[in-house]
């Protein structure tokens, strides 16, 4: 039977409300965090794959993060994941992308992982490198940036849309897939799903559970140092005109002309 692992991230509030700590990491203790929106697409595709595979296929939601990150797992379980794993260890805080990928790869390696599904990027860090890093660490083939996912037997097929071409690509299990927000709208949890989620098993693993050397993770293990964070200065107040029988266009042409675009 096939098990699908979907990796999800808990992110704090919206970008408007993000706060940096004194050590220039993002404050992740805020209570209004949620499952990263782009990871909802990953959960959706994991569930669609499960439905297509039938025959007892299961979905395991996996996250790495502090205690509050379990909210992201709860959402994935409400949407329909069967069980969840929360890798939670104080030593992980401040990890860079590589450290995070090492932890994720170790956790995925401990789970049955026929298909591993990721979103394209988190909505806070926005690097989009984790799927490639985990693929490299686990030596799994990767179908990245998929805008359409289908499965037949042991073979997963995707469509990837780039600027100059669209490609259909496929690979056999075990493999890793990252999906875009074009892959299909995520479902809303049903009332039944929300109630059922409360009874689904959630395992918590620490770094020793995974056998990960903590020299590779956390701020100590990070290969990147953020030196300075500055708030983008607000844009100056602009000119606002109201169009009245063509006046708006005339003033716009004047503006474009003043700035030498016309």
């Amino acid at each position: 039977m096939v098990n699908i692992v979907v990796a999800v991230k808990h992110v704090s509030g919206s970008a408007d409300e993000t706060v940096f700590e004194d050590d220039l990491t993002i404050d992740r203790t805020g209570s209004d965090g949620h499952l990263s929106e782009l990871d909802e697409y990953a959960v959706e595709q994991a569930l669609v794959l499960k439905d297509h595979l039938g025959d007892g296929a299961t979905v395991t939601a996996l996250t790495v993060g502090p205690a509050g990150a379990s909210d992201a797992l709860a959402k994935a379980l409400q949407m329909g994941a069967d069980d969840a794993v929360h890798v939670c260890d104080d030593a992980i805080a401040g990890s860079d992308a590589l450290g995070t990928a090492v932890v994720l790869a170790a956790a995925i390696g401990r789970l049955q992982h026929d298909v591993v599904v990721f979103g394209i990027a988190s909505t806070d860090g926005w690097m989009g490198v984790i799927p490639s890093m985990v693929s490299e660490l686990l030596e799994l083939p990767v179908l990245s940036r998929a805008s359409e996912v289908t499965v037949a037997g042991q073979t997963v097929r995707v469509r990837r849309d780039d600027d100059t071409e669209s490609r259909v690509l496929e690979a056999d299990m075990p493999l890793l897939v990252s999906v875009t927000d074009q892959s299909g709208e995520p479902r809303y949890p049903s009332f039944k799903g929300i109630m059922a989620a409360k009874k689904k098993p959630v395992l918590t693993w620490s770094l020793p559970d995974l056998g990960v050397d903590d020299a590779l993770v956390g701020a100590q293990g990070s290969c990147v140092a953020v030196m300075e964070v500055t708030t983008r200065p607000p844009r100056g107040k602009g000119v606002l005109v109201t169009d009245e029988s063509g006046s708006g266009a005339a003033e716009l042409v004047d503006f474009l002309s003043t700035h030498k675009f016309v």
Partner: protein
Amino acid sequence: MAEVLVLIDHAEGRITKPAAEALTLARRLGAPGAVVFGAQASVVDDVQSYGAERLYLVGVPSGESPSPADRARTLASLVSEREPALVLIPTASDGNEVGARLAVLVRSGIVTDAVDLVSEDGVPVAVKSVLAGGFTTTARVTRGTPIVTVKPNSVTPDKASGACTSTDIALVTGHTRDVTLVSRERRAVSERPDLTEAAVVVAGGRGTGGDFAAVERLADALGGAVGASRAAVDAGWYPHACQVGQTGKVVSPQLYIANGISGAIQHRAGMQTSKLIVAVNKDVEAPIFDLADFGVVGDLHTVLPATIDGIAARGSA
């Protein structure tokens, strides 16, 4: 002087503009060594004109562009041989995938999506715009060979003179089990400038009602590219390749004209570093006006045609 390896994208025998930008940035940190996959020796003139002192021509047996995994492996072997001060990779298409794999292979730190790169006492420091453009960070790699991916338009390409030595090297391949290409379909190439590289972007949103004709004509009148909001793309009015925003393209043109776009954060994240922003919207309360240097409260279906006529009149005056 230390060497800086630069991954060079090319098309039709010429290097791309982001590649020229990356070579320009590389010169701030050391002597550029251009790494080119599957190109003719003719690119030597291009890379030399942007200051590359070495050119590594990687033979590609199939003629297909190698996978990110194979490009990363080839770069990793060059990193161990040449011990560069830095590896610079343009983000275009799959640069971040190559960089991510390279970081694993050489156990080094990576900074993605830099908008600038400077030398602080010889140490590369990358500048990033983060959290929907609300913050700017500077970061440096503290372990291994620094890997930095750079966004288009980070610097104006600047020519340099000098000699360039060309070396042929072999592609290093990895995973035995890889992905299979089933089919591919080329997209029609637009006559307009590339969205991420254009000096002028004219974009349309929900307010167009699906009719992009005026948006396109204004773009053409200004020599610009056409963009679309997520709402317009989700409605099927314009291709996803033209989407401006967090999950589409992040653009930073000299002039951005938003038409019938309310300005949700996911859109603002894709355009708020534009030099000048113009907005046309019927709704005076639209958040896009908070960003606009010049805003017109009005119906784009009348304002845009009149603007196009006005531009034509100036042009012939």
